């Protein structure tokens, strides 16, 4: 069995690499908030580990928060951290609840994550600048969150069986 700190550090480093990859890909439609959300794939992977619900959630939340903080300081700045930590935590809570409901597949949970992340960011922006003008971009952000969420969910769905298989292999070895 991989020790917990080693495993979480491993996942955290993958999330940071994905955050870096995302920061250098010029994927922008000129509307702030539309992005791939690649690091969310790691959170989803952790959420779908074969373990008790509580420990899985704890691991995913730890990696999620650490990822936002470190990636924020490495690739952006304090404002972006405040902005994205709201999205990260809100989407994490909704994804956790959606997983517990057990009626969605991974793709569904990922879509919920993407859409709720964008919604939370819009709400934070509205509060900070005290304007309703940003609501104009709401439909685009919902649709983009849905599409990127579905694509990531598909990737994670394909990955989960392999990862669980490699885990059982490691368990036998050690």
């Amino acid at each position, binding site marked *: 069995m991989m020790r917990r700190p080693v495993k979480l550090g491993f996942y955290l480093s993958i999330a940071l690499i994905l955050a870096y990859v995302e920061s250098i890909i010029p994927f922008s439609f000129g509307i702030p908030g539309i992005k791939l959300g690649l690091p969310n794939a790691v959170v989803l992977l952790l959420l779908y580990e074969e373990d008790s619900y509580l420990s899985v959630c704890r691991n995913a939340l730890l990696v999620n928060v650490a990822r936002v903080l470190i990636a924020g300081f490495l690739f952006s700045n304090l404002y*972006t951290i405040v*902005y994205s930590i709201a999205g990260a935590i809100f989407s994490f809570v909704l994804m956790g609840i959606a997983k517990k409901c057990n*009626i969605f597949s991974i793709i569904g949970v990922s879509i919920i994550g993407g859409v709720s992340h964008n919604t939370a960011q819009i709400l934070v922006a509205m509060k900070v600048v005290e304007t309703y003008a940003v609501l104009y971009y709401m439909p685009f952000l919902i649709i983009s969150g849905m599409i990127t969420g579905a694509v990531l969910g598909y990737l994670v769905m394909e990955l989960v069986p392999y990862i669980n298989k490699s885990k059982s292999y490691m368990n036998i070895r050690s």
Partner: protein
Amino acid sequence: MTFRTFSTLNKLKKADFALILICVMASIFSFVLFWEKDSALKYIRISYDGDVIQTIPFDATSAENREVYVLLKKENNQIMYSLSEEYPYIAEFDYYNIIRLSDNSVSIVEADCPDKICVQHKPISRTGESIICLPHHFVVDIYGNNDQSDQEIDGMVK
């Protein structure tokens, strides 16, 4: 390959399709709710912390290719703005955003905010569109002034 794709689609549950439907409905709903008709008379509104500090008429139809730069700056806790035909000279301010108004679009060309999201934002020209600079609490948005006349016409039709 097609077989693999099908096998993934089979893993989708009913709730997933319902969720996609809800998302599409929500985006259409918010589109209907927040989308504004592009009006003929347009104004550029610059606000800070929710307070309007300047409105400028914005005529997309004007043929002459004029460019006006608005310099927003914060100095000694005071928000100041200045209009000029030339690119403004930047001295030592607390912070600044430079907005460019050309004949058919508004964009922020330079700012010293840390995230530069406002600079990367696409130029806006439609009624309802906005650029926000979150770190500086600035909002630049376009609003139309024919809302009232529209309502009057609607009222008369009824």
